């Protein structure tokens, strides 16, 4: 129904334009029109020519003079916010402030590669700058505010679903695009016009929006299950920017439809008119029905809201439904990426005071503290040269404290008839441990295996709220794919260890496998594979406990524990309290596993 080779995106009827690359270029242009109002864009793509092409197009369309800066992934707060300019300070003998990256990018765009790995503190600072348009500096003995009206281009290079840009940041960025499926050949068409952007910027303030469009955006957001009120607000600004770009001073329906595509659709957590996502099973025929009645009905007969929704639906990724049936809302999926990053930030340790030190021994010099130590002596030391004299005695180093975090991984056999009871007790034990965990800042994860495979039900977390939500949907029954469970536990424990945290694994099973890795039934093959998986796990040298939950403890589980180099605990009638006791006693979630790594 649309032109096979659309050269100019703007001449097309908006609701038919679903080509991701063209949407991406439109988003780039709109962002150039109102960078401050729209906050920015999140682009999921691998580093490569497609992404570079998009960035180049975006740079081209930005009117000249707008700074574009890259955000180095490990930028420190001092460089982001600004602080003491060391060279100038030492040279002049008085503190000289230095502007940070945020303030230096005022009126421009910050490009953040590997945005999914930004430290939470960096994310918070970016968010604050987007919100207020300024940075508050309270460090190095300085205090002040700098103007920093920025937009953020977050380049999301995440591979797995578990990663993703931190939710507080992505909530503030108007657009989200997925370019992973775009091939380089598709990117050649389309050149953007910075002149048009310049004109649009002038016109932007005068663009009027009728109330019905605003209502349509709000209603659309509700129908798509978008909770945040930033979404309709950003949608409104998108519509306005698009109208300005088209040279109009009134927002029209096509603008709103585009806004729904660009802003609302990527945030959707449900298909309109389906059950809320908590229900886990939205009727799959819904979108099909909508599509079926589409061509016959005249567009004008439908209320505005429906047409806006239709536009949004056209670009909602097809696998959303699948994601929803798996009970994984977009929000939840990206939230867990954040947890891991917190762990990463912790690994380098946090500053815990200052001690006398020597940079030649590899200590990390704390410049401010060193200067403070040197300051009182300046009168005595220098002969009026006006320069600061620093002696070895003045050197101060930052001491880092590295809390060693424990992640306790529960691997629960959710198969068979006793599963329901066992599951309930395991859930209880997880929650009991979690209740302690937030005091100690330890984490808990849960893997369940049943039927044909294993599933990570609760990625490592210390949030009671999240844990409860994940555990609520835990079902039982089916066969015992023990090998799959052990494999997944090994993989998770390994990734936890790589993050610098200490894993501890708790198996709750009777050790009787009857489903092989490929999902086929058969006791012999399954048992053999379970033993293989167990010895592979044992080779990882991981602290682990196997709790035998069968009514009459048997040798199978004990042999398995032996292969895994795990402690064997027969607890036939364990309840939540006993389980969490056992785990604590085995030293895996001990009362205070913190150490100071110098």
């Amino acid at each position, binding site marked *: 129904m649309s032109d096979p080779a659309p050269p100019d995106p703007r001449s097309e009827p908006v609701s038919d334009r679903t080509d991701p690359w063209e949407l991406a270029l439109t988003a780039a242009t709109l962002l150039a029109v109102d960078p401050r109002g729209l906050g920015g864009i999140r682009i999921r793509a691998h580093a490569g020519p497609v992404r570079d092409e998009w960035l180049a197009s975006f740079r081209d369309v930005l009117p000249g003079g707008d700074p574009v800066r890259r955000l180095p992934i490990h930028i420190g707060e001092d460089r982001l916010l600004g602080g003491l300019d060391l060279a100038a300070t030492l040279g002049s003998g008085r503190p000289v402030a230095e502007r940070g990256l945020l303030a230096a990018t005022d009126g421009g765009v910050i490009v953040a590669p590997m945005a999914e790995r930004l430290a939470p503190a960096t994310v918070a600072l970016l968010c604050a700058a987007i*919100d207020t348009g300024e940075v508050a500096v309270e460090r190095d003995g300085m205090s002040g505010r700098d103007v920093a009206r920025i937009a953020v281009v977050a380049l999301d290079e995440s591979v797995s679903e578990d990663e993703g840009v931190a939710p507080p940041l992505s909530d503030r960025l108007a657009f989200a695009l997925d370019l992973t499926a775009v091939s380089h050949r598709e990117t050649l068409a389309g050149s953007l016009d910075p002149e048009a952007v310049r004109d649009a910027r002038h016109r932007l303030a005068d663009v009027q929006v009728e109330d019905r469009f*605003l209502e349509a955006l709000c209603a659309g957001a*509700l129908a798509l299950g978008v909770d945040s009120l930033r979404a309709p607000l950003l949608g409104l600004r998108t519509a306005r920017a698009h109208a300005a770009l088209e040279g109009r001073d009134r927002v029209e329906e096509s603008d709103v439809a585009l806004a729904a595509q660009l802003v609302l659709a990527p945030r959707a957590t449900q298909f309109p008119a389906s059950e809320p996502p908590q229900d886990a099973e939205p009727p799959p025929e819904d979108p099909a029905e909508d599509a079926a009645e589409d061509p016959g009905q005249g567009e004008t007969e439908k209320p505005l809201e429906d047409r806006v929704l239709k536009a949004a639906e056209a670009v909602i990724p097809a696998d959303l439904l699948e994601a929803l049936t798996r009970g994984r809302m977009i929000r939840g999926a990206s939230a867990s990426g954040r947890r891991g990053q917190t762990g990463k930030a912790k690994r380098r340790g946090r500053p815990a005071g200052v001690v006398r030190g020597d940079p030649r021994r590899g200590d990390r010099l704390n410049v401010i503290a060193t200067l403070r130590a040197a300051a009182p002596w300046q009168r005595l030391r220098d002969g009026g040269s006006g320069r600061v004299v620093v002696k070895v005695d003045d050197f101060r180093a930052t001491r880092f404290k590295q809390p060693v975090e424990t992640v306790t991984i529960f691997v629960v056999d959710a198969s068979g008839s006793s599963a329901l009871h066992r599951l309930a007790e395991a859930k209880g034990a997880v929650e009991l441990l979690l209740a302690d965990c937030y005091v100690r800042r330890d984490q808990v994860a849960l893997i369940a295996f049943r039927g044909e495979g294993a599933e990570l039900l609760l990625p490592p977390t210390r949030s009671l709220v999240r844990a409860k939500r994940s555990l609520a949907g835990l079902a039982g029954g089916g066969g015992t794919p023990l090998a799959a469970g052990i494999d997944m536990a090994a993989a998770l424990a390994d990734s936890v260890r790589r993050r610098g945290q200490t894993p501890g694994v708790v198996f709750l099973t009777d050790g009787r496998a009857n489903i092989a890795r490929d999902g086929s039934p058969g006791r012999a093959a399954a048992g053999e594979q379970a033993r293989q998986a167990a010895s592979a796990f044992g080779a990882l040298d991981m602290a682990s406990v196997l709790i035998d939950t069968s009514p009459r403890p048997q040798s199978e589980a004990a042999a398995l524990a032996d292969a895994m180099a795990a402690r064997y605990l027969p607890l036939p009638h364990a309840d939540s309290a006993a389980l969490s006791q056992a785990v604590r006693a085995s030293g895996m979630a001990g009362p205070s596993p913190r150490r100071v790594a110098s």
Partner: protein
Amino acid sequence: MALPFPFSAIVGQDEMKLGLMLTAVDPTIGGVLVLGERGTGKSTTVRALAALLPPMRTIAGCRYNCDPDGPLRGECEGCRGEGPPKAIKVPIPVVDLPLGATEDRVVGALDLERALSHGEKRFEPGLLAKAHRGFLYIDEVNLLEDHLVDLLLDVAASGENLVEREGLSVRHGARLVLVGSGNPEEGELRPQLLDRFGLSVEVTTPQDLKTRVEIVRRRDDFERDREGFSAAWKRKESGLRRKIVKAREALSDVEVPDAALERAAGFCMSLGTDGLRGELTLVRAARALAALEGRPAVGDAELRRVAPSALRHRLRRDPLDDVSSTVRIERLLEEAFAA
């Protein structure tokens, strides 16, 4: 600083607004914790509070916001000058504690400039001094570094800031109202810190279309014309400010009858809250509410209205119980006040 969004123009979120106004009337209530999802207007509301507060008296030239009539007068170096102190009126401070703040900026440190250029040892007050007798706002309080949390707990308990570093020894008043906000899904708060907040409120996104449209419209109007929007809401703002000033004056005259005290105590016992802080906060908040509404004495209606905020975060947690604290409180309130 950029013009903040007017407090009175915020749609809905009544519990949060009430909580903030109560602490503005009676700072001894001890702070508000705002928990909720993203995009619910937490930060907007707290920042709007600053514009609403009446001015306070302080000593001219004092770097620690000392009260001219206060007990600490004369103890801090700023007020030790000769002659009678000159009192001036300044806005009540609402200080942001940014997430990246370093310890030296929070507690204060040696003034580098003075030290380097004059060789003089002088203390430069930090954010705690700035926020003395005002509000300290911590966004994303659950992401705050542990050592800063410890520091804040200490200051909140003692009401003063004791600095012993870089050869300096300074003591100054730091009575401040902590206002924290955060999203519980991104991390839990330490129980000790939780307990320091007098009130805790939960905010959610409104789900009905009309309210949502109104919120987006006002926000958009504001972004497009900050001055005009603020001018349009000026009368409502000053009305609200007058209400707070009046309530502050009336506060000491509000009676708390024994019956109300017993009610509060009985209620806390049935909920099984830890410690006495819950009762104290409950009574203080109810008194502030009575003052705000121009009532002469605290009655059941006031206690009932503030009880959820005052006690929600003090319930002993049973991790196996799925019922939220709010629901438990509401249930018990029904029982307690039915009789």
